[in-house]
């Protein structure tokens, strides 16, 4: 690191080499790194909004009866928390921010295949977000349907559902365009020698994700238009009184929204697959199987949407088929977990912040995945359907999984792009708070659900009060950890110790170029001669 300390990384690389500054150089830039950072700032902003809403939900549930808000506001709180977290944070979270920042460099390209389309995707995201936010404060008030917009309630409620779903419709197009861009980029712009067997696993996971974005997202877009048609024109598509079918809405909604959880988790798995070998100083165990399992999860995960609908009145045949298929998805997921653990075996493990977040991902995702099997099995699902068990389960997968991977990626890759790094000690303290708070909050929720506490209810029976109090305290510990981690990251990236080209000793291409990378990424056209986890000759400073 000694050579790096003498240089001033800020205002170097893509931050300054085009000579353009000001807001316009960002919001009209076609550089994948700048667009990646635009996404990063946007999704982090919405993540914080979602966190505040989540904390308010927990405060309301701290004790039975009214605590801080009335029932209607509570309905709006959990709806907006869901919409913001799902559509504005987790779906674009890792692929659009870190995918844009890192993927083109990992494959040896100067940019994505369609840089202007990339910028347009961010603009669609910004417009969609604006529309969603407008829906909260106009018309009949914030939507109160839950993030799933189920009919018949969503067709009848007086709240501003039409505008909110229109916002989500626009966000869907942003996601589709990112998918198209990434598939094309990975097919067309790989450097010489970067064959499919040398593709970093993060890029492999983005490739699988992009396919799901392209194939599944149009279905939610159409479905949401149908909801608007139902509300505005009274089309009767989902109204049995007029020959419609309310369960059809659930099919259409989950045909997208279940694969969407793989849009959320696959890139996170890619992050973990890239971090674990670097911090174990060992090539990844089972490269081919991890790459193939990404495609396997994307394919099998697209066929299991019915497991959200066991109590909807769907046919028993469908319940059995979807239950069986749900268990199939566990196989590629388990392949990944076993391969990560095998990579650690006899590795030279260093427990720095990215690795701690990555290891907690493996544990928390495994807990979430196994509780998912309880929900995937039709018989047990009937018992815990629509309880806090489901809420605990998906927070284990989505926050314990994708959320922790997001922070792993932030600690791992952001120093490369900012040229400075965070302090290690506060990062670890923050991680510890997050990890403890997380488990206190969501494990308790799973127990509450097993005991029969329903989700989305404003009030509850007195016997649920002690555990609800514990869960709320957990949310405060988690929030404390989040604040420590974020403050340390922002301070470090702004004015921390400068870093060199390869602070972690990684073998993928992003660690072979200058820090921060220049706008064109590579000085010449790179030629790839070894695999992404071949650490021979790579020295960790």
């Amino acid at each position: 690191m000694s050579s790096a300390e003498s240089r001033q990384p800020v205002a170097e690389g893509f931050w300054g080499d085009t000579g353009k500054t000001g807001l316009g150089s960002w919001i009209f830039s076609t550089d994948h790194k700048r667009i990646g950072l635009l996404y990063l700032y946007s999704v982090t902003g919405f993540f914080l909004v979602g966190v505040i809403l989540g904390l308010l939900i927990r405060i309301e549930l701290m004790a039975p009866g009214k605590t801080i808000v009335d029932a209607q506001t509570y309905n709006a709180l959990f709806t907006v928390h869901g919409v913001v977290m799902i559509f504005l944070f987790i779906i674009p979270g890792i692929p659009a921010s870190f995918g844009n920042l890192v993927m083109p460099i990992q494959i040896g390209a100067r940019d994505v295949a369609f840089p202007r389309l990339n910028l347009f995707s961010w603009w669609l995201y910004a417009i969609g977000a604006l529309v969603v936010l407008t829906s909260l404060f106009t018309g009949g008030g914030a939507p109160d349907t839950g993030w799933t917009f189920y009919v018949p309630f969503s067709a009848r409620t007086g709240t501003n559902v039409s505008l909110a779903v229109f916002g989500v419709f626009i966000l869907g197009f942003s996601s589709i365009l990112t998918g198209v861009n990434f598939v094309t980029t990975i097919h067309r712009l790989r450097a010489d020698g970067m064959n499919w067997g040398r593709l970093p696993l993060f890029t492999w996971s983005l490739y699988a994700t992009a396919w799901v974005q392209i194939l599944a997202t149009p279905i939610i877009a159409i479905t949401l238009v149908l909801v608007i048609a139902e509300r505005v024109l009274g089309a009767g598509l989902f109204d049995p009184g007029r020959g419609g079918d309310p369960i059809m809405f659930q099919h259409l909604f989950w045909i997208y929204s279940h694969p969407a959880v793989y849009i959320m988790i696959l890139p996170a798995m890619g992050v973990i697959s890239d971090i674990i070998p670097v911090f174990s100083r060992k090539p990844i165990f089972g490269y081919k199987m991890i790459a193939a399992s990404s495609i396997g999860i994307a394919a099998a995960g697209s066929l299991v949407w019915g497991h959200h609908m066991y109590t909807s009145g769907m046919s028993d045949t469908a319940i059995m088929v979807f239950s069986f298929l749900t268990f199939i998805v566990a196989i590629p997921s388990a392949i990944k977990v076993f391969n990560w653990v095998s990579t650690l075996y006899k590795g030279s493990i260093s427990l720095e912040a990215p690795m701690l977040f990555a290891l907690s991902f493996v544990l928390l995702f495994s807990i979430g995945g196994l509780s998912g099997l309880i929900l995937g099995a039709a018989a047990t699902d009937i018992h815990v359907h629509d309880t806090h068990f489901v809420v605990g389960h998906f927070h284990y997968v989505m926050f314990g999984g994708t959320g922790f991977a997001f922070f792993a990626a932030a600690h791992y890759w952001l120093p490369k792009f900012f040229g400075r790094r965070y302090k290690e000690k506060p990062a670890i303290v923050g991680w510890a708070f997050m990890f403890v708070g997380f488990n206190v909050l969501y494990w308790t929720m799973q127990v509450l659900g097993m005991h029969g506490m329903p989700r989305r209810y404003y009030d509850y029976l007195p016997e649920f009060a002690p555990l609800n109090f514990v869960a709320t305290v957990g949310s405060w510990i988690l929030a404390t950890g989040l604040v420590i981690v974020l403050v340390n990251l922002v301070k470090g990236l702004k004015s921390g110790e400068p870093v060199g080209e390869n602070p972690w000793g990684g073998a993928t291409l992003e660690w072979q170029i200058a820090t921060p990378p220049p706008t064109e990424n590579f000085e010449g056209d790179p030629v790839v001669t070894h695999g992404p986890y071949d650490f021979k000759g790579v020295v960790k400073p």
Partner: protein
Amino acid sequence: MSQESAEHAEHIVSYKTLVGVWVALLVLTVITVAITRAELGALKVWSALAVASVKSALVIAVFMHMKYEARLFRIILLVALVTLATFIGFTFFDVLYR
């Protein structure tokens, strides 16, 4: 690579083919309308879907030039179509047995 050359080769479809496809589409539209009036029972939906499939296949192959494109693009299109068919097919595990 042959793929590259196939992509850049411009293919101009003759007027004869274009008009032929247009006439075929008109005839198929007439058949679609006729199906709605015929007593076919459960077969009605399948017949209408079959005609619609043929029509879209013609549009995609000729008007959208997929017939003259590189193999990769045709595979990608096929993946999309198979996915859509699978989604619709799996929904019938519910609809047919409810």
